[in-house]
């Protein structure tokens, strides 16, 4: 697990080599990933693009330690994630990764503040939940339950929850998928701000080519393979985006 990838870049956070993922459903086999080689660097904002079913979420889950690949290797810094035990993966997620999901996945019985606190309580050096919520512009909605928040607000709580523990990596699976474009822009601004101010490696999945403008790099997936990787010469700020 401590074996370091020899050829890795000094700034590399994630290094993936020959990742494959096969889902077996009875007779049918679905090849979700077919050999992905990828390096993600410190402080980057990466956008994962690709049609539905191309394997974006699968890749993200593997990087975040939520799922294990069927083949290949993934390294986080000098930790080998592939083959790690469940307890090690849990610790990895707890200490290093923040997730934002398409459907927010807040805990409905907890207020905004408590949703964030649920994560900060188990983190090593977190921000205060109020601070995280202020960061996403919800300083005045601390004690509202998810049911009392709009979709965009809920997604911002989810982002606050993800960033509150000062993770090294922020993995976002279609954070704007369920939002209108204006609200989506607000959410993206938050992500951009976190990426810029905290220097968090941010991976952002979207169907939305428009969003790709704000990325340092855009990785295009198609049918479980990387179709192309494009570096954005100049990043557009989130508020200039529209779709």
């Amino acid at each position, binding site marked *: 697990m401590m074996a370091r990838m020899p050829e890795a870049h000094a700034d590399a956070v994630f290094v993936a080599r020959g990742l494959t993922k096969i889902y077996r459903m009875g007779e049918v086999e679905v090849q979700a990933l077919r050999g992905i080689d990828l390096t993600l660097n410190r402080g980057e904002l990466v956008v994962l693009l690709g049609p539905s079913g191309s394997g974006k*979420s699968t890749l993200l*889950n593997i990087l*975040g330690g*939520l*799922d294990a690949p069927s083949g290949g290797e993934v390294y986080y810094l000098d930790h080998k994630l592939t083959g790690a035990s*469940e*307890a090690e993966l*849990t*610790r*990895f*997620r*707890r*200490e290093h*990764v*923040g*997730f934002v*999901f398409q*459907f927010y*996945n*807040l*805990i*409905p*019985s*907890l207020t905004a503040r*408590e*949703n964030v*606190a*649920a*994560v900060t*309580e*188990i*983190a090593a050096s977190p921000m205060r939940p109020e601070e995280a919520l202020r960061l996403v512009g919800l300083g005045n909605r601390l004690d509202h*339950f998810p*049911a*009392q928040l709009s979709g965009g607000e809920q997604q911002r709580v989810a982002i606050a*929850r993800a960033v509150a*523990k000062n993770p090294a990596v922020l993995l976002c*699976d279609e954070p704007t998928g369920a939002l209108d474009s204006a609200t989506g822009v607000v959410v993206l601004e938050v992500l951009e701000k976190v990426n810029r101010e905290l220097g968090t490696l941010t991976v952002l999945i979207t169907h939305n080519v428009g969003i790709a403008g704000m990325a340092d790099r855009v990785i295009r997936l198609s049918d479980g393979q990387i179709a192309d990787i494009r570096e954005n010469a100049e990043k557009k700020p989130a508020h200039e985006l529209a779709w």
Partner: protein
Amino acid sequence: MNALDRKLFRDLWHMRGQVLAIAAVIMGGVATMVMSLSTYDSLVTTRDRFYGEYRLADVFASLKRAPEPVAARLAAVPGVERLETRVTAGVKLEVAGFSDPITGQILSLPDVGEAQLNRLYFKRGRTVQPWSTDEVVLSDTFADVHHLQPGDTLAAIIRGKRKKLTVVGVAVSPEYVYQIAPGAMFPDFKRYGVLWMGRNALGIAYDMKGAFNQASLTLARGANEQDVIDRVDAILADYGGTGAYGRRDQFSNRFLSEELKQLRTMATVFPAIFLGVAAFLLNVVLSRLIALQREQIAILKAFGYSYAAIGAHYVKMVLLMALLGVAAGVALGAWFGQGLSHVYSETTFRFPYLDYRLQPGTVLIALAVSALAAVSGTLVSVMRAVRLPPAEGMRPEMPASYRTSLVERLGLQRWLAAPSRMILRHIGRRPLKSLLTVLGIACACGLMMVGNYQKGAIDFMVDVQFRQASREDLALAFIDPTSGRALHELAALPGVEFVEGYRDVPAILRFGQYRHRAALFGMVANRTAVQSFYATIGEFILFYNLVATVLAGAIGFGVVYNSARIALSERGRELASLRVLGFTRGEIAYILLGELALLTLAAIPVGFLVGVGLVGILVVAFQSELYRLPLILTPENYAMGASVVIVSALLSGQALLRRGRRFGRTGGPRDPLHAAGRAGRRRRNHARAAYRDRGGGRQDPCARALPRVGPGRRLRAAHRPQGGRCRRRRPGSRSDRTGAFGRTRSAHPRPGPGPGQRRAGGARGGAGQRARRRRRGTAGAAGARPRGIPATVEFRLRPGAGYRTQRGNPCPRGGAGRAIFGPGGPLRSGKRARGSRQHRAAAARRRGRDRAGEGAGCGARPARAARKRRGGSGRPAPARDRQPREPGRRGGSAVHRRGEDRDRLESDSRPLGRRPPDRGQGARGRAGRLYENLGARRRGAAGARHRRFHVAASGVGTAG
């Protein structure tokens, strides 16, 4: 409190209906457990303390008569630590103001020094003064019910002589913790008492001066009880010893032990059922909850909550529900336990003190067992939550897989509309769950049946015992076995319809190394006994019915409400979409409730089976040597079982519909379990209140007239009758009627015939009727009644044979408010003194009628033989054909020679009667005395002429 714990409490609060339903079921189990265990503990501690402090003997030996020096020989038996002799005898008592005959047991207290064994705990007063002749100590039960205080007097008929006794003390004895007249089924404190008297006075009265007829002893440490008993028996054999017995066979102690055993059974059987059901419910609820919270679980894991933390979270949730149930159960159980202890100490076991104690250990056991049940019930669900891969949780749940139902596969779908098909498929989707739901509901039905079973069973026992077996109106017990002639004399008494005599013979049954004292058995009683019996155990029945209803209701509602809520949660969305598609609310309700209704209906027959099974278990578990409950379930039992299910289903349906209405309106929240309802509910309540204020809706006319209290609320008419209409209560209408009815009922359990009918009844009793009676009498005398010489005679008063009480109130029924003559009971004598009249008579009888070789007490002869014998023995002409006779006239016909009694078989003697002091008639004959006894109590009124007793003579030594 951390965020996860907050989630825990909010989740619980959100599911509070279900949580309460589950807690109620757990409460049921814990309550029964705590009730029985704590009562058990209390009784055991109290018993041990009382036995120890008041030195209950280890071995008891009764005998005919032995001179005092024999005691020294007994005391010398190795293993005997301390020995004390006593004189004891049966006695008939009279208490001023109470006209029924009272039997009692009188025991001697030493005149020199204090009693060393079987000491008395004095509640009031003092012990008798040495050498006093008329002082007695009374048992507290007897003293209490008759309000006798030290200084009061009562009369005893000792060996036919009436003696005035002065009460000097009221006491409790470890020997008579359970006070029951020998042979009786249940205690009757009013008609059975225990007395203690100076040894010398009692010795003189019973011709036991310088002699004893009972010895009690304690064993030295390490002594072998059976050895000592054998040796004691050997010594006492020459003195008419009836076989010594240990504490285990001591009557009161044996009852106590049996009761304790039953408490233990109760502490396991019922809680097991409840906790089983609770485990199932928890499983259903938690697996549903976990299915609903998949995404939450996944997110928690994604953020680094360990698997153990997630598992602990749900286990905590389960334990909290259990804890709630345990807390409520301990409280309820302690309350029930106190009630039960109270019922015990009032009706059965008399301890000088009975401190109800709830031991911490009991609570811990309850807690541990409930927690175990709860956790084991939910382990699978929790493990599913724990194992749920975090990535998986992010994906929406796959549509549940359905199959066509069996009905459809059989090709019956043509008759089923889509909603019905949905119901069937939903049930069929999780057959195991549906099955368990049915079983759970069935448990409610079964428990209700168990709770009510006791009443039915006891009714049955009473019916068999008092109305079929003991059909007599009066019973007599003779001091000593008496010749069959007494039967004829009795039969000749005016008003006697039927006489039946039988003999009680004690026996020790041996099988290999096992021995068993077969005690018993004299029965007896009349309707008075039935009444007093119900008065005694009525409290028990009521108590158990209350407990059962509470508990069965808890289970029924718990299961039905939970399955309903789960159904709503699982299908809320689906149903909401159907509503959008244009299904009416009724159709939606049908789909939702149809499943529930189907399961409930299916559960009822299953519940009947469960009920029968449970009752069967109970019958076996509670079966004791003393009695056995019959497995009798009445239609009411079934009806009660079914109704508890139906009522809880209706209530649950109601609750569900109220929740479900929301779906119809809003199209359904995403997560029915977590539809944060507070704001919405408030809004709805406002709307409803406004609607009501406008006078809309089905409203209670009373409510409209009542003032408003608080926003949107009205005072509801508290006494609104169920019909929904408001009816003013007219004074004297309802409550008065009940009152009058109650009075009537309590006075006359079965309304007796009016005066006219009475006479008609008297005129009717023709030969056919008599024959019927006789046959029933014969059949009634079933069982292993030992044959031989009658020692007990049973009377049956013809229904018309009313009489007046001493106060002159006519009694409509022969028996009501009347006499019991304590009969047989365990005879303490195994032997018949050779050469006695009794012995010769018995031998003659055997030669004449019985098959040779049949020992006393084991022969069951065909009824035909019995009838023949009856004929042969000169059954008396029916009483009604005779002229009523003057009491004194037959006085000399069966002269009772006292001198002969002594060497005769020792029986548990009940003095026959007394010479009425106010009449001065020199009646000496047995029958004469009997008659006087009856007559004296029925003087006034033209009594004798109307009263024609039917004396049952059929059962002498018969068996059906």
